[in-house]
């Protein structure tokens, strides 16, 4: 308590720098150097030995081993992200390295193939790797562009509040529907029971809410208002307003889910393809050692 030991050696301050710029583009530069080095050695070897440097050569083995290690390490990001240990690590640095070193695989693995492709497990592994990388690139694009939209849409409201607001409006609708005649009450019921706030993944991803029950209800209130009078009309006008408020609240919540889905969608390719890649890679390596 006396602070007799002074300040501890903990890392406390954090730099305000995105994962892409981490450490002044440290990993981007590292990755570029790696690619340039690999190309230079390859070009030298190819020129010297006058053959394409496929997997079977020393250089090919080296590049293959490097690539395999990289792929396994890249896949371990999934573990690093979830295993919260006490020591010093920064997931941001990991992601930064992941992105740039992951991209370097395009060069390293391609050189490793010696530009020999065919209809076999080896090329399958290569193709899967490119798929993972491509989806990763989409992910980086999403991470770099969507957060602002996400933030602007929600302002100071939380997801819970957004849903709470819709819930509150539903309760008010229920109350406002009490004085209504049977057919008009059905309109409110349509909104209350038929509205699907989020829906499945694809709906969220494409923001496809064209058939929203609440919108139908709004469309029906208009004509009903024309023929209503007295108490019924007053109540309907209130319902109309509430339905419109609900449409606004729904719009906000759905936009939030839409952007969130966009931020996640690529992972549904990236991660399964990673597993497929790891399997293909294993088969590739085992078969190479067994049959070559």
């Amino acid at each position: 308590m006396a602070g007799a030991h002074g300040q501890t050696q903990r890392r406390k301050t954090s730099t305000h720098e995105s994962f892409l710029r981490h450490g002044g583009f440290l990993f981007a530069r590292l990755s570029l150097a790696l690619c340039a080095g690999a190309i230079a050695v390859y070009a030298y070897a190819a020129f010297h030995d006058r053959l394409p440097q496929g997997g079977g050569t020393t250089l090919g083995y080296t590049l293959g081993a490097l690539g395999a290690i990289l792929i396994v390490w890249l896949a371990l990001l999934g573990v690093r992200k979830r295993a919260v240990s006490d020591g010093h690590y920064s997931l941001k640095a990991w992601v930064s390295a992941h992105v740039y070193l992951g991209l370097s695989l395009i060069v390293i693995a391609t050189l490793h193939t010696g530009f020999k492709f065919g209809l076999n497990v080896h090329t399958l592994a290569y193709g899967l790797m490119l798929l993972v990388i491509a989806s990763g690139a989409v992910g980086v694009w999403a991470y770099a562009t969507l957060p602002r939209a996400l933030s602007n849409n929600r302002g100071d409201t939380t997801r819970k509040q957004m849903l709470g607001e819709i819930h509150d409006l539903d309760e008010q609708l229920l109350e406002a529907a009490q004085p209504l005649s049977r057919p008009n009450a059905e309109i409110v019921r349509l909104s209350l029971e038929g509205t699907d706030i989020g829906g499945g993944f694809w709906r969220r991803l494409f923001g496809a809410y064209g058939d929203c029950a609440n919108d139908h209800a709004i469309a029906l209130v208009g004509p009903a208002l024309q023929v209503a009078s007295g108490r019924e009309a007053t109540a309907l006008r209130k319902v109309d307003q509430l339905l419109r408020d609900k449409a606004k609240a729904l719009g906000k919540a759905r936009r939030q889910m839409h952007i969130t889905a966009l931020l996640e969608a690529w992972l549904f390719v990236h991660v399964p393809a990673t597993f497929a890649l790891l399997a293909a890679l294993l088969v590739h390596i085992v078969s190479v050692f067994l049959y070559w």
Partner: protein
Amino acid sequence: MSEVFRIAIVGSGPSGLSAAAHAAATGVSHILLEKTGHLSDTIFRYQKGKHVMATPSLLVLRSDCAFSAGRREAVLQQWDADAKAAGVNVRYNAEAKAITGAKGDFSIALTNGQVVRCETVVLAVGTQGNPNLMRCDGADLPHVQYQLDDPAEYIDEHIFVLGGGDAGIENALGLAADQAQANVVTLVNRSADFARAKEANVKALMTARDTGRITVLSETTPSLVEPGWITVETPQGVARHKCDRIIARMGSSPPRKFVEAAGVAFTSDAASAFPALSPTFETTTPGVYVIGALAGYPLIKHCMNQGHDVVEYIRGATDLKPADEPILEAKLAGLPGKMSVSEWLEFLRSRVEILYGLSPLQMREFLLDSEVKAFHAGETIFERNGVGSSLFGIAQGSVLVEVDPKNPAITVPIPAGSIFGEVGLISGRRRGATVRAGDNCIAIEIPRTAALKLMAQVPQARETVNRITTERQILQIFKSGLTPADLAEVLPLAQTVEVKAGQPIMTEGDEGDDLFIIRSGSMIVEKQVGGKNVFLSYVPAGSYSGEMALLDGGRRTATVKAAIRSQVVRLPGAPFRRLLAKKPELLKRMREEVASRRKVNAFVEEQKDNFGGVVDMYSSVASFLIDQGIGEATDVLLIDESLCVGCDNCEKACADSHEGLSRLNREAGKTYAQIHVPTSCRHCEHPYCMTDCPPNAIQRGPDGEVFISDACIGCGNCQRNCPYDVIQMDKPPPEKPPLWRWMLFGMGPGPGEPDKAWREKQPKSKVEKGKVAIKCDMCIGKAGGPACVRACPTGAAIRVSPEEFLSVALLDRG
């Protein structure tokens, strides 16, 4: 003539009850007066099923009533049984109103008109006080109540809640929460806004109002209560409403007036002061004793022990060793010199200047909180930049302060009797210098809370600390080999000024050459550029302001105003300039400082000409952050929402590194220009949460973390006191299966805080644990630092201190 009791005990909380039980057990004629219809009202009013804790665990219980940790209901039941078994003579619904007479013959007048006569009085009324009552006609009708135990109890009623504080708002929200109860709830607030309530509560209330669940009447006062009706005066006129129940939550008044009326003196005027007591708990009125929370001992075990002891003292015991004696003995065991506990107490009290005004009893309590340490010559006591907010008093020997970080040989001595470490106490910031023992010395280390309590209770201690701190702070800020003698002319003219948030200490364009030292709080510097207020810089506690006009003459070049409530020391310009003339080194130092501040100003102004939008942005982000209370933070979590992908990995990491509960609510909180201030502890310079923690469980760690220790008894005071709503009361969920099992086999709830459903499905553990206060501890003790920051994949989550963040670096964001 009615019976004259040997002892009348007022209040049947743990202290009063224990006193009565001991009186009964020893056959002393007594009466226990209790205001309510049951024993121990404070504990009776805890939330249903609350786990009552029995700390400090080292302390032995000395009472005729049993007490161990357990549910509120079990504790109360036990005491009811104990009171009966001991044959306690208790009178319920007997609220003492006034105490008259003198030792041997007191009369206690009760509010019901009865009078109780006794030889001695033991006041054990606690600190809860009485709720402020409704004053209008009909306020005594039975449907007016001052407490709400269970909002679920009332169905289909028209209920009026009076009072716009947190208690009133929380009650109103609770009553309206479940629509199925169909209550019609109205909240009546005397003023126009809800300045006293927490923002989150006000927000929830406004939502409830907008959705029609609660009616809010502002600037309204009740004027008449009738069965089934209430009449209120609103700005629009008088209105009469249907009303089945009134819940009045208009605050409470402390019992001090009642106690003072009996002739009992308090130690000072401060709101936190306690009655002045002798070692036997006797007040300044002979024959009147005070024990329990009112005596300054808020823990139940202490209260009960005192109940026992006070009866012993009244029966004439003189050699009774207080129950805390073994604790103190253990505390003092390793020290040189073979002295008894009471000799040690006297030794410290008579040698350390700030302790002179303490009574032996206060000294005892004080030592329970503090540590006595011996240092051998040359040993380091604390280091520069270390974090620690305790105060040291030197009882023997002397210490040396290393004033020059580059050369530890340059030191300033502090003699026996004086104090050191006081800067951390005032500002809660890091230690400004390394201090080592000059020769073998013995010092008492007083934790910040205990020191503040001391200053509140003993005016003499407060003055001493203030005098020394001002002098030291000035010496420390200006360094340059200044000695106390150099300040002889300046110091007597120094003035300590309290400034409210937003209030300027100097205004651009004004005359003036006084120098200001920011003692606590912080300042922001603003300048008019192109007709707009532009934020220039942030000045934390421990720096100075106003040096430009002092050195160069002329008018003030910028406005300096308080970011939060602050305390500054004003040093008049003329004598200070004379000091500068004598100390060329100091002058040089200040000139350098002025030059660097000028540079910042020039830089900002230059940017303004080039691309105005950037400076506007910088200014407005800075003022947004100040509005969010960043000015009193030492370390705050910010989220750059232009990078945040909403993965919530920060919350998950927080939960997984803290027993499964996240102490951070990422989404909640305000956002401006993509800078988001989530709901998470800011590790305030002066933590409000610390102010009223019975077991003193909230402390500051070595890196400035404000954390809650295992001593927490779950009273919820800190949750109410924190203005930023970052403390939750909860109990840790059951342990999850390890991560690999989840990854491979999908076992358990996965990373992050487990959901309710999973929590409930787990087998209950045998030992029942109570809810305790939970908040961010900045991952104290974890080598890697805060997990939220480490776990953020994009770099959106950052932890910053205001002085780093509110600097020109912000300009880069453009």
